[in-house]
């Protein structure tokens, strides 16, 4: 096994970079260097990753902070891919805010670097309390990012974001404390082996559900998301959609499914019910949005409902599909927010009605936007297809009706995305304000190029993403089956 503490290094590199910014300034270059270093580390992590085991790798364990918790890190395939996703998106976020952020640049970059450290911490924690600490601490930088650099209703959005997610999480903390007092351990791998009594499982499951459902976000507790997205700066939206939303799904995978299998089976109707409502309802809401970011935010809620459906099918295809859907959504909706950011930087409006006929002046932009629209719709050959297809397949095994409703969601998703694309890009360029709009700059092309590459990579050769997931998901399926009632 690898003796170099690479996970700790990945947590510390962004923190060190933020310290350097605090001391010496030069925020843009330092932040970019820090995030790129982390991306290189993430690639090294992936290359050294052993696909043939479900056990946790790259583990580190230190007990130096008293008996309450231990600094226990380690990753399996699921966590590894999410860490790579975070490390991949971060440099792009820094690049995306290269020019659009003018005020308080140092603080902005520090907030992003701290976010990155915390996100990697969440995905690599193998101690339940350490997980909670990282999980919650992310609220602080995100609150500041929305509140300081956001749009007009930023203060309302930042409060809503913070209090909503905190309220969800404190109940989870109590559940965690109960689990610790029952099992006498804070280690996640050990807790996965521990069998909780059926009736307590239900309460614990509900407490975790309260937290993860808000983070996910699931209908009807999703309302913080559109507000937070609309008011956050572009890069903030990318992080929010790309990585923060994955924490909820990751939480279900890491805690709810393996630790409370009985409750997961018993309460699956909650998940399926809410997800089906979300797929249809938020898709319809997305159809009527006037604001581009809000539309994409609602589409996120719909896509996340696919993820929850897939997770609770309890079979290999469904779970792998939903993890892939999470990754794909991280890339695609992040990229879509970047696309909105491109025109927003030029026109300073996100109103769909303010645009139209952009293809005439921005052909490169039209192409990029189209690729991501297609990926969001789930066109075969793009990343969106694989995840959606596997989820539908898995859902069909679990329940025909659920997959039927989900399939309708796919159609609605195509409707609102294509309509958005049509309204913004096609038609004649009639508006005077758009007459001088310029196409993508080199910096923007550099941002989009890797995203496009990954979208096609995941769509055409998903095996490189599915392989690391095989063993951990197989183990997860087995864990959920042991206590399962079916």
């Amino acid at each position, binding site marked *: 096994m690898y003796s170099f503490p690479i996970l700790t290094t990945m947590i510390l590199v962004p923190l060190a970079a933020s310290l350097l910014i605090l001391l010496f300034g030069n925020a843009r270059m330092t932040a970019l260097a820090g995030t790129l270093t982390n991306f290189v580390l993430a690639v090294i992590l992936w290359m050294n990753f052993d696909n043939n085991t479900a056990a946790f790798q790259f583990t580190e364990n230190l007990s130096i902070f008293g008996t309450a918790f231990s600094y226990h890190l380690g990753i399996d395939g699921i966590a590894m891919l999410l860490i790579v996703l975070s490390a991949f998106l971060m440099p792009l976020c820094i690049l995306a805010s290269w020019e659009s952020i003018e005020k308080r640049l140092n603080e902005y970059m520090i907030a992003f670097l701290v976010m990155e450290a915390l996100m990697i911490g969440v995905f690599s924690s193998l101690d339940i309390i350490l997980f909670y*600490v990282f999980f919650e601490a992310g609220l602080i930088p995100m609150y500041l990012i929305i509140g300081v650099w956001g749009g007009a209703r*930023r203060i309302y959005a930042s409060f809503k974001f913070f209090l909503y997610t905190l309220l969800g999480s404190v109940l989870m903390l109590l559940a965690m404390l109960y689990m610790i007092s029952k099992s006498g351990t804070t280690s996640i791998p050990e807790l996965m082996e521990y069998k909780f009594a059926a009736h307590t499982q239900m309460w614990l499951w509900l407490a975790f559900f309260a937290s993860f459902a808000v983070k996910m976000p699931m209908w009807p507790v999703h309302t913080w998301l559109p507000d937070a997205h609309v008011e956050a700066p572009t890069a903030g939206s990318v992080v929010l959609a790309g990585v923060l939303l994955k924490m909820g799904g990751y939480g279900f995978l890491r805690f709810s499914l393996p630790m409370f299998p009985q409750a997961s089976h018993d309460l699956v109707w909650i998940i399926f019910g809410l997800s089906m409502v979300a797929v249809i309802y938020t898709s319809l809401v997305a159809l009527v949005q006037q604001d581009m970011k809000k539309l994409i935010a609602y589409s996120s809620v719909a896509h996340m409902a696919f993820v929850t459906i897939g997770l609770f099918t309890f079979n290999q295809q469904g779970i792998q599909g939903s993890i892939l859907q999470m990754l794909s959504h991280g890339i695609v909706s992040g990229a879509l927010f970047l696309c909105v950011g491109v025109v927003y930087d030029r026109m300073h409006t996100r109103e769909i009605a303010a645009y139209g006929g952009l293809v005439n002046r921005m052909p490169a932009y039209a192409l990029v936007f189209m690729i991501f629209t297609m990926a969001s719709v789930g066109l075969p050959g793009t990343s969106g297809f694989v995840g959606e297809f596997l989820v539908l397949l898995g859902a069909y095994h679990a329940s025909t009706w659920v997959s039927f409703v989900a399939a309708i969601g796919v159609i609605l998703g195509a409707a609102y995305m294509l309509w958005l694309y049509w309204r913004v890009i096609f038609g004649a360029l009639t508006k005077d304000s758009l007459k001088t709009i310029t196409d993508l700059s080199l910096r923007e092309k550099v941002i989009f190029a890797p995203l496009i590459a990954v979208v096609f990579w995941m769509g055409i050769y998903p095996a490189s993403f599915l392989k690391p997931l095989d063993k951990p998901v197989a183990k997860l399926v087995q864990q959920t089956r042991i206590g399962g009632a079916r």
Partner: protein
Amino acid sequence: MESFGQNIFLVHPEITLAVGAMLLLMIGVFRGDGALKLLSWIAVAVYGVAAVFVTILPADRLTAFNDLFVTDGTARFLKLVIYTASAISSVIAIAYLQRRNINRFEYPILIMLATTGMSMMVSANDLITLYVSLELQSLALYVLASIHRDNAKSTEAGLKYFVLGALSSGLLLYGCSLVYGFAGTTNFEGLRTVLHATLEQPPVIGVLFGMIFVIVGIAFKISAVPFHMWTPDVYEGSPTPVTAFLASAPKVAAMGLMLRVLFDAFGGLSEQWRQIIMILSALSMGLGAVAALGQTDIKRLLAYSSIGHIGYALIGVAVGNHESISAVLIYLVIYMFTTLASFLCVLAMQRNGDQIEDMSELGGLAVRQPKLALAFTLILFSLAGVPPLMGFWAKFYIFKSAIEFGGLPMTLLAVWGVLTSVIATAYYLRIIKIMWFDKSSQDFDKPDYLVNDVLLTATTLFVSPLGWIFLGPLQAAAMLAARALIGSA
């Protein structure tokens, strides 16, 4: 029976403080008001010496003066915390007092006298000691609250504090007399023996009444709801350094006294007092969270915040086992540092030489004084209990002990606790919002007091994740102290 020499040895720290106060008084009389700075630093040295004496006290539980006074792990732990808070409170006031022409040399002396009282409070082993030490502390505090005697608000604060404090002392004394009347002894160990003997049958109603009055008297001092009414007014009216002191050391001492009384004297009645403490706790957490939402004055807000914090600490008291008491002690330490840090920030926020107390005037602090704003932000998040800051661990240990204790009422109390902490977060967020998101046209004064800046930096680093390195030692020390308290019960 212990020898006279041993008696004296055990009260060495208190003697040091008392003699130190006299010494300071002498120097002050001869040097005049200009000696404030000198006296404050000598006071710090005296606290240091007293702290050293505390550390060389034997670890066992020993009593002195015919069981009037006890020293054990709990007392030593709390004394060190109290001395630290008093020392910090003495020096952070210098600049404030000098600038406002209230540089009276009595200031550090009064703090030291109050500290002597507090030091005895946490060592009380008899209702008589309890009352005498509490009064020694309180009288010094009444004078401190009104030390800015030309200022109507400060005078009002002192008077209010005095009148309500006297009322609570009356209740306490009445309770003591009832307990004595029905139990026939004022000694804590004696009380425990008597109350233990009657465990089989329901406790005598008179003793119960007495106990309730005693608890109410102490609840006044820790400002637990519904006995909190004096807190916002006194906090707002007192000069800011005095408020910082009032919010830190006396709270720790009164909490220590509460532990002493509940576990040493009324340990046999835990089923009875647990309900009372739980109700006090639930009310404090609720009111502390909700009432602070509407405040505009930052000191009033911190007053309500401290009420809420006492509520969380009381959860641990109500649970009443080793883990929970050590959680309470950890809570008190972290609370003490965080509170002092928050008042250091309030002291540093000035405009044209005037203290800013209206929160809405803090707009734009993050632009004009980013370091101060960052420190205050971390401290407020810590007060809110958001990880990874130290305030989270304070709450964490408390809730952990409550969940481990189990049972529906305690679980509900913990749920209530986390819910109110979310509500409380809203008002901390409001201050942060004003500092970071709002704009301001006016500039702030640059902080120019080196000592305050150093202390603020140190305390901020303590509440930041760097403070995690203290978690292990702190937990071990608190556990030892808790064992001393419960082991004796």
